[in-house]
Each structure stands twice: as structure tokens, then as C-alpha cells.
């Protein structure tokens, strides 16, 4: 999997819109900026589809990966964008780093920890910024911003 992918995740109240450019993207930043909410919306959409009420627009399939049987699941995933939350203890392991290296998926990891085993760029560390209301003034519009820089994407 190569290239840049535009992702929109939205429900009636929230809209996230961002680009994923490399195989590893890190999301961190202040509390209460919507990191876990983004993760939960993607998890719901992946599990329930249209029934979730969450809409995910992306050229590639977006899903989450959780602690239980993660190795078994990951080795069967291809050409997808995989979101991981900070509660997964395996994120720091060399096993996970090895599987990421061999994988053809993109990974979006929510964590404040330095994942020394993973080769990610400082350019791909983002926070989430609320950019205001969207369209009907009920939906809050969220974008990514570079933690180590000023540019929004």
C-alpha cells in the first residue's frame, strides 16, 4: 500500500477529515480533543456498517485492531488502514513492530508513548484540532495538525 489517502469519518454531531500519508501515523495531544471518539466511531462503523450511523469515506477500508488475538487478526489483514488505541499493551512489543514492517497496511496509532521499535517520522505525529462547526452548525468539524509544526492537513 502506497500513497496518500483522504479519510472522512462523520456522524450527525462530529466530522473528522484528514489525510494519511505514510504507513505509520501517530495521534497524540491534549486530553478531550476527540482521539478516543474518533477511534470509537471507526470501530462502530467497521463492526456495524451502515447500521452504526457512522459514515466512513475512504478509498481503503478503515478498521480497528484490539488486544485479543491481535497477531492472528493482523496477519490476515491486507491493504487497509488500521487504527489502534493507546490501551493496547502490544504496541511497544518487537513482535508488533516486526509485523508492521512486513505489513501492506497503514497504521494510525493513538499514543503518547515513544514507540522505539517502530520507524515513524516526526512529520507524521498529529494532534486533533476542532476547526469549528460544519455545514448545518450542529456538526463539529475536526482536523489533524502537526504536533511539531504549524501546518494543518
Amino acid at each position, binding site marked *: 500500500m502506497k500513497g496518500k489517502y483522504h479519510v472522512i469519518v462523520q456522524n450527525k*454531531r462530529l466530522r473528522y477529515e484528514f489525510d494519511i500519508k505514510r504507513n505509520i501515523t501517530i495521534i497524540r495531544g*491534549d486530553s478531550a480533543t476527540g482521539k478516543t471518539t474518533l477511534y470509537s466511531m471507526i470501530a462502530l462503523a467497521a463492526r456495524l456498517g451502515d447500521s452504526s450511523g457512522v459514515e466512513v469515506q475512504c478509498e481503503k477500508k478503515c478498521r480497528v485492531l484490539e488486544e485479543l488475538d491481535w497477531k492472528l487478526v493482523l496477519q490476515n489483514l491486507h491493504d487497509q488502514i488500521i487504527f489502534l488505541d*493507546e490501551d493496547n499493551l502490544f504496541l511497544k512489543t518487537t513482535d508488533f513492530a516486526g509485523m508492521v514492517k512486513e505489513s501492506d497496511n497503514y497504521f494510525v496509532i493513538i499514543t503518547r*508513548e515513544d514507540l522505539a521499535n517502530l520507524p515513524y517520522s516526526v512529520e507524521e505525529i498529529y494532534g486533533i484540532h476542532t476547526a469549528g462547526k460544519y455545514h448545518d452548525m450542529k456538526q463539529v468539524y475536526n482536523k489533524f495538525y502537526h504536533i511539531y509544526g504549524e501546518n494543518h492537513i
Partner: protein
Amino acid sequence: MLKIIFGDIENSIYHPPTYFDNQYEDEWITDPLSVEMVRDIDKSEVISAHLIESPVLGPISPKEISGGVKTLILMMFDDTGKIFNASSCGDNCAKWIVEIGKRKDLTINLHHVLDFSSADEFDALMLNTGRMIHGYREYFCEAMDIKER
């Protein structure tokens, strides 16, 4: 007094938000300190023990407040002796960790160098080295030398 220990330790709750969801008590939510922390960090108002009004999400339950505030509430009110992973907290929680450390003996676990620069002058015992630090500059220098992080 605030004590800080970096790295993997026994008796630590690695993901406090999940622990909070299964262990919190109603009176923790309506305590004035919790009300103030929810207002400051989540920009939300505690209406009752079961209802919080969020400007983004609308009416929510305590299980939907931010992971950072959940962790702070546990640090203040949980009396099981558990040590909570403060890497679940954003930098905007740092001043509240210092505040809680002034009210009780508090040991926190960190897996990254939390930015305490927003806190006023504070003292803390760095348990990895046994050194007492005074203020953010000393904390930062000490933390950068701790290999367990």
C-alpha cells in the same frame, strides 16, 4: 506529595479510563474538584452524577468524559492503592496532577515525559532515581536521564 515513577511497574493500571468505567462511584463525579476538572479540560458541565453536558457531544454519561479526566478522578478518589498511568493524560492535565499531589500522597506512573510546564512551581520525588525535583526544569532534566521511560 507527588511521586513519579517511569516505566513498567507492578500494581499499575495501564489504561485508567477502562478501570474508571468499571469502578467509579457517583460521588466522585459531583465532587467540586471533579466538577472543576471536567469544566477545565473537557469544557463540559457536570449536571448530576449521571449526566454531563458536553458542548460537542451533548448530554453524556460519566463514561464518556475524556480519558485524561477519568485518570485524574481516579488519582484523587480511588483508595485501593493502585498506581495510575498518567500517560493517559494530556499535557493539559499536568497542573491538576500537581494540584492533587498537594492534597494527598500521590504516586503516578509515566511512560512518556509529560509536560508539566503549565503547572506552577511544584516538587516531586522521582522514584527511579530517588531524587527530589523542584520545578519543571529539574523534572525535565531528570526525566530525560531515566532509561526506563
